[in-house]
């Protein structure tokens, strides 16, 4: 046990008046002290009955902790996710019991599948009321078990310092993920002798990183050195492992073409000469087709999602697969690895780089360029420079790239605009692509962009959202109004739930079943929240409007009316192999 030491924070921060003279602290104060000690600066939350003691204590921590009052708990957790993804730190959420906690579930599932480090503190009814169907009581631990890396219910305040330390350690170490700490009201109120905060560094039953096996690194290097058509596919693991530099060195020494998953995007600049584009259902033509032509497939920090692999029995069957992953459960889960390189890629990549030969593959890379040209001719040209009057999503992204020079944080929602934004956005800086990849959560972008803006206030944050997704969480405009994070909202409005409509057109014989969605006047809605905005539907106004959006002080909403029935191509239709990717509706 440590002696009482309340100021565990390395930063110079004012000590809280609530605990200055007292060794006895409440559980609530212990929660906040833990946050201060973990260098948390921003909390996204919403108060309520069962978490009131923590909010009461927070009143005295205004100097150290910045609390952002969201408009819905789902907004809080998406904001925390956006914050975590941009800053590389842990996002923190406060919510009350019952509906407050259940409103977090979508965000928890999203953070779980996209490995985002988030710690959620939820209030819970008094311990003696557990199981009595008390007011605002839900079984939060059991509801959140499938969607959390770890969760724990605190019923005694003395547990709080160690449980909070464990929560942060688990959320951020190894393969990151969401953690829920459910604290009963009596534990929040309970006074106890504060032992000080000691960060958690080891849990005996938890191994965040598997030990690196040199023999596998050697085998992997051998395979790479003897390969003729090697191909790197990388995911978010590179970003989560903070291994961008190590990855770039590996790619550049190896001379191997590299394609990203949607989650891995921006780990290297999108215009890197060896970067050949995005994988997956709406990824680039070459990377998809050539997955089935490479002889060695080097998968780094990615999990072979079905949106990346298409039909598994037609996926890279000819290739020897090297799989680098920190999570042993990912090895062989979907694609059998010839050589599994378990471990943190920040450790394994330099070992591998050391052992591989410096090489170039001009002919092989030329194959990617050939496919790129085909895609350019059949898809990209018309998307970026359309002949008709109707605006395309692609040209909006093109102009945005030009204005931001690829330095903005791009937060996207889910659907056609997401695919187009990810296909065409230029990104120079890591952690620029914030999107709901695994779960596909519509409504993610607006709150996530709020979090992203706090995650790195020095960069421009642009939230690109469809007309459908925006209506799912537009209440967070209220948060923007009140706290003024600088979020540029770019709505690509096609007056349809576009992606579902595209599928209905292509695979359900044009039966447009409930995809025709009516929107309010988004500019007026924004105006109601004190956010300036405008709407454009003509090409000649587009660039100027984007410029106004970016140059306006503070947040701004720009609605761009785009083609109603435009489709996103290329596309790997569901149930087909990656090589069966199509470039137009005629080929489906």
């Amino acid at each position, binding site marked *: 046990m440590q002696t009482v030491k309340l100021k565990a924070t390395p930063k110079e921060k004012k000590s809280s008046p609530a605990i200055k003279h007292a060794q006895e602290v409440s559980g609530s104060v212990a929660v906040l002290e833990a946050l201060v000690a973990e260098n948390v600066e921003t909390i996204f939350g919403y108060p309520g009955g069962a978490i009131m003691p923590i909010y009461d204590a927070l009143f005295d921590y205004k100097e150290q902790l910045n609390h952002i009052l969201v408009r819905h708990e789902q907004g809080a957790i998406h904001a925390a996710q956006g914050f975590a993804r941009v800053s590389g730190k842990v996002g923190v959420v406060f919510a009350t019991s019952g509906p407050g906690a259940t409103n977090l579930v979508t965000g928890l599932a999203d953070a779980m599948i996209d490995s985002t480090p988030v710690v959620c503190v939820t209030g819970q009814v008094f311990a003696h009321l557990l199981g009595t169907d008390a007011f605002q009581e839900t079984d939060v631990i059991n509801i959140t078990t499938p969607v959390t890396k*770890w969760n724990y219910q605190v019923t005694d305040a003395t547990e709080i310092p160690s449980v909070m330390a464990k929560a942060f350690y688990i959320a951020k170490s190894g393969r990151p993920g969401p953690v829920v700490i459910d604290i009963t009201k009596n534990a929040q109120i309970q006074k106890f002798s504060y032992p000080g905060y000691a960060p958690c560094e080891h*849990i005996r*039953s938890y191994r965040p990183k598997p*030990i690196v096996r040199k023999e596998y690194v050697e085998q992997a290097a051998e395979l790479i050195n003897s390969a003729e058509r090697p191909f790197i596919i990388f995911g978010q693991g590179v970003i989560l492992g903070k291994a961008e530099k190590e990855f770039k060195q590996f790619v550049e020494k190896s001379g191997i073409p590299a394609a990203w998953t949607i989650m891995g995007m921006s780990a290297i600049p999108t215009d890197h000469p060896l970067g050949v584009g995005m994988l997956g259902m709406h990824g680039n033509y070459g990377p998809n087709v050539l997955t089935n032509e490479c002889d060695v497939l080097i998968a780094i920090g990615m999990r072979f999602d079905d949106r990346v692999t298409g039909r598994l029995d037609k996926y890279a069957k000819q290739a020897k697969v090297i799989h680098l992953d920190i999570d042993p459960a990912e090895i062989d889960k979907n694609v059998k690895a010839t050589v599994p390189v378990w471990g943190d890629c920040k450790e394994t990549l330099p070992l591998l780089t050391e052992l591989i030969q410096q090489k170039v593959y001009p002919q092989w890379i030329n194959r990617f360029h050939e496919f790129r040209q085909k895609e350019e001719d059949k898809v990209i040209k018309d998307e970026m420079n359309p002949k008709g009057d109707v605006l395309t999503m692609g040209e909006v992204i093109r102009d945005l790239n030009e204005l931001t020079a690829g330095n903005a944080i791009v937060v996207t929602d889910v659907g056609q605009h997401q695919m187009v934004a990810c296909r065409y956005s230029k990104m120079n800086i890591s952690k620029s692509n914030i999107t709901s990849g695994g779960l596909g959560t519509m409504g993610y972008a607006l709150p996530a962009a709020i979090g992203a803006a706090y995650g790195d206030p020095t960069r421009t944050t642009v939230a690109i959202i469809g007309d459908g997704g925006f209506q799912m969480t537009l209440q967070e405009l209220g948060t923007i109004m009140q706290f003024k994070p600088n979020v540029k909202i770019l709505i690509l409005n096609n007056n349809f739930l576009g992606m579902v409509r595209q599928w209905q057109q292509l695979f359900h014989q044009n039966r447009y079943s409930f995809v025709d969605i009516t929107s309010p006047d988004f500019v007026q809605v924004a105006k109601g929240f004190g956010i300036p905005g405008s709407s454009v539907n003509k090409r000649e106004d587009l660039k100027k409007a984007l410029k106004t959006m970016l140059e306006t002080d503070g947040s701004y909403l720009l609605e761009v009316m785009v083609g109603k029935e435009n489709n996103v191509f290329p596309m790997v239709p569901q149930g087909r192999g990656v090589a069966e990717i199509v470039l137009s509706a005629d080929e489906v």
Partner: protein
Amino acid sequence: MQKQEYTITVYTENQIGLLNRIAIIFSRRKINIESLNTSPSEVDSVHRFTIVINETEDVVRKLCRQIEKQVEVLKAYFNTQEEIVWQELALYKVPTDIIAEEVKVERLLREHGAKAVVIRKDYTVFEVAGHREETDNLIKVLEPYGLIEFVRSGRVAIIKDSAGFHERLKEFETHQPGENTIENEFLSENEKVFSM
């Protein structure tokens, strides 16, 4: 790959909610648990789960990895029938008068290795430990003689090729566990015991 019976042995911390965390790994994939037993292990504070399922080796391996991924799970092993010694305990309640009268019944009980646990005027409880078919057989045998009630425990199993968990645990407790604790299947292919 063919489905067969696998026994999964899991060492865990003694934590509320962990049973659920492990159970949903199966239910999420719509896999039925044939038998489940959980109890403190020989090591203080460590619990041992014995779970029996019918699946292919590929699926069981993936399940074990998902189980081991849980923060409070120390280790998960899976074994085929041949790699373990196992028992299930069964209790049978039968009317005492019939047993007392019918000499045949006494012989049958003796043949099945049954042991009387409780003898009362109205009923007697016998116990038998054995494999599933052995305990099943005795049900069939006793049914004509008015079997009142029957219950069987979850499976308990000892892995033939295991050195126990004491040494492993010490390794887990150090900050840098050794390779034995973190070994993976690719390096232990010649071992009968699967471990990760």
